[in-house]
């Protein structure tokens, strides 16, 4: 991938030579002749690293540094100067500069400093992502989500975990029912004992009894030695039965007896074996309806339904999609060795606009597929399955996600910058889409840069609010 470098220097000869050199090193380079121009370009272009001269007309390197700290805090800034003093260097570092380099530049040292700055930025980004993932993950579990529905689920998981009660987890296929079961086990006093999962729909009806209860040698043809069933293997811990609604009716009675008596008899066995197992079940069927239809025993239904946790489908918790995407990117980045940091805003809009009939499992597979296709550091729309992308308008028609409580001007700013990014910086196209003149767009971008400058303490000559309606 090519990192973006913004070079700021009022000395055109040095600036242009440095730009050419950096391009030869593999950077994507933009240049600016003063701090004001640099701030505007930085806001529009989001460089990975910024290299600026200290002494410049209008807005000097330190002012630019302050403005950038407010607007793009994660962009490392390297200050260059023709006359360095210890005091200036100390001040620059205190203000948040990554490094302070004297002219004439030693190209090999500069290259190394740039690489280190980017490495540090990557590390900081990874730390942030990890922190975000950890914050989004209920402690001690793999449950990810910050929305209200997942918050309720997590709270219930925490409460039921401490008890020994049976729990039925319901939800559409792929919503993470086993993850919830593992979370309950992980937070329970049984967490150091086995967690055994069995998918009832994956086992033929003829084999399910031996799977659950085990068998003795000679119990049937081919039973050459004793085999413990899942109940016994989960002794002291938790048995998770997925798709419990698929358990054959004749097995339901035996299953209930084991739950009630905490004893079981292996197939072909003479004596009974005591088992201490907490049972968690999951289903995507309506068990109450199954009971009414006579396909599920009512007494087992009531025995299991001490607690019910309902998992929402992914389409009802779209606010958690960015966190889940980031989680899976982190997981597959580790497996593939690719340095992918996230999804582009456009790709994320597509992911959030999609209906996800396969829920989190489908999302996981989608991210895994994208990770195979991606060459750069971001998953883009082009890495998503074609049928996921909306026809006609593309991702651009997905709604812009904004936080509550924003001022109207901030909403406008975010919308304009988002449009600009979607159009890859093409101002003419952006202005056209927004229904404003290119001059108005330029004015607005200029004002955002001026505002950032003012926030950095410049004070500036601009009356930021004046002339708001006087755009061309």
């Amino acid at each position, binding site marked *: 991938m090519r990192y973006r470098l913004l070079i700021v220097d009022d*000395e055109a*000869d040095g600036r242009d030579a440095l730009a050419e*050199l950096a391009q*030869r090193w593999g950077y994507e380079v933009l240049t600016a002749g003063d701090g004001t121009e640099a701030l505007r370009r930085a806001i529009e272009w989001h460089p990975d690293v910024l290299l600026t001269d200290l002494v410049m007309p209008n807005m000097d390197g330190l002012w630019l540094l302050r403005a950038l700290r407010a607007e793009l805090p994660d962009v490392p800034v390297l200050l260059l100067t*023709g*006359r360095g003093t210890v005091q200036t260097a100390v001040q620059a570092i205190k203000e948040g500069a990554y490094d302070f380099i004297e*002219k*004439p530049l030693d*190209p090999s040292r500069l290259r190394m400093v740039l690489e280190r700055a980017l490495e540090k930025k990557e590390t900081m980004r990874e730390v942030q992502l990890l922190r975000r993932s950890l914050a989004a993950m209920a402690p001690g579990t793999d449950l990810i989500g910050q929305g209200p529905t997942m918050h309720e689920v997590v709270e219930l998981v925490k409460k039921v975990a401490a008890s020994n009660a049976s729990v039925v987890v319901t939800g559409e296929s792929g919503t993470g029912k086993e993850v919830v079961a593992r979370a309950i086990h992980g937070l329970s006093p049984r967490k150091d004992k086995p967690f055994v999962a069995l998918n009832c729909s994956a086992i033929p009806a003829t084999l399910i009894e031996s799977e659950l209860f085990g068998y003795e040698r000679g119990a049937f043809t081919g039973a050459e030695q004793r085999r413990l069933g899942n109940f016994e293997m989960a002794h002291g811990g938790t048995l998770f039965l997925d798709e419990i609604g698929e358990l054959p009716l004749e097995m339901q009675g035996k299953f209930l007896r084991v739950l009630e008596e905490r004893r079981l008899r292996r197939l072909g066995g003479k004596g009974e074996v005591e088992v201490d197992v907490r049972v968690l079940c999951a289903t995507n069927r309506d068990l109450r309806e199954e009971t009414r239809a006579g396909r599920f025993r009512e007494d087992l239904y009531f025995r299991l339904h001490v607690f019910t946790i309902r998992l929402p489908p992914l389409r009802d918790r779209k606010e958690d999609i960015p966190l889940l995407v980031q989680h899976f990117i982190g997981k597959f980045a580790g497996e593939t060795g690719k340095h992918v940091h996230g999804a582009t805003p456009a790709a994320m809009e597509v992911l959030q606009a999609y209906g996800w009939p396969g829920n989190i499992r489908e999302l996981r597979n989608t991210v895994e597929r994208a990770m195979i296709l991606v060459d750069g550091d971001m998953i883009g729309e082009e890495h998503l399955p074609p049928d996921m992308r909306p026809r006609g308008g593309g991702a651009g028609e997905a709604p812009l996600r904004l936080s509550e409580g924003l001022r109207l001007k901030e909403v406008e700013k975010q919308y304009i910058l988002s449009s600009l990014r979607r159009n890859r910086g093409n101002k003419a196209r952006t202005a056209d889409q927004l229904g404003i003149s290119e001059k108005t767009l330029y004015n607005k971008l200029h004002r955002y840069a001026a505002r950032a400058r003012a926030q950095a303490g410049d004070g500036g000559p601009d009356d930021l609010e004046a002339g708001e309606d006087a755009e061309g």
Partner: protein
Amino acid sequence: MPTEGAATREPTPHVAAEDAREYALHGLAMACAAGGMAHQVRNPLNAMALQLALLSDKIGTHREVLDACAGNLARLQDQIGRVDEVVRRFVEAAEPAGGSGLDAGRLAEDAAALFGPEARRRHGAIEVRVEAPGLRARGDGARAGRLWMGLVWRALEEAGEGGEVRLSAAPDGAEVVLSLEHPRASPPRSPAWMAEAAAAAARALGGRLEEKVAGGVARVALRLPAEAR
């Protein structure tokens, strides 16, 4: 204070006591101008260094050309470094960095490098000897730097046509000694107020200035408290 040459001293024609404030004002202005000069010299130097790096990078793909040019490129790089070093020395001499402490050996070497060409123009020379590199003195680095450069200039003036000036930096117990040795006419060419001003500055730095003259040779020692190692 001088121990020889009690005769009345004539002020050098260009630095009379009554003109000292005017010269001080000029010195402050020059210090500031030196900063501007550094900026103006280093920007083209920077462009040259980058162009050179570009050139090396471009011809690096042609092995034979690179081998043929490697020496030239390296010498050009050296010349850029050399000009940059002159600028650094001059700026630091014109406006010594503030803060605590100073590198006595570097100060001595910088003075020798900066005044060397002028000494040679006068058919003389400046030699420097640093006994312990990294030797640091305590106190106001800017003031010590100004005092030292003033003392070296005065030594050069007093040494006259063809005179040799020897500079050294050496440790002496708890002190760092910056020394000058040079011919001194009798009566000396520099006015008495200069020696008095230098002695007062040395005391203000927590040190002292020793001046001895014997056989037409002046030995001046600026003794400053050493930094604890």
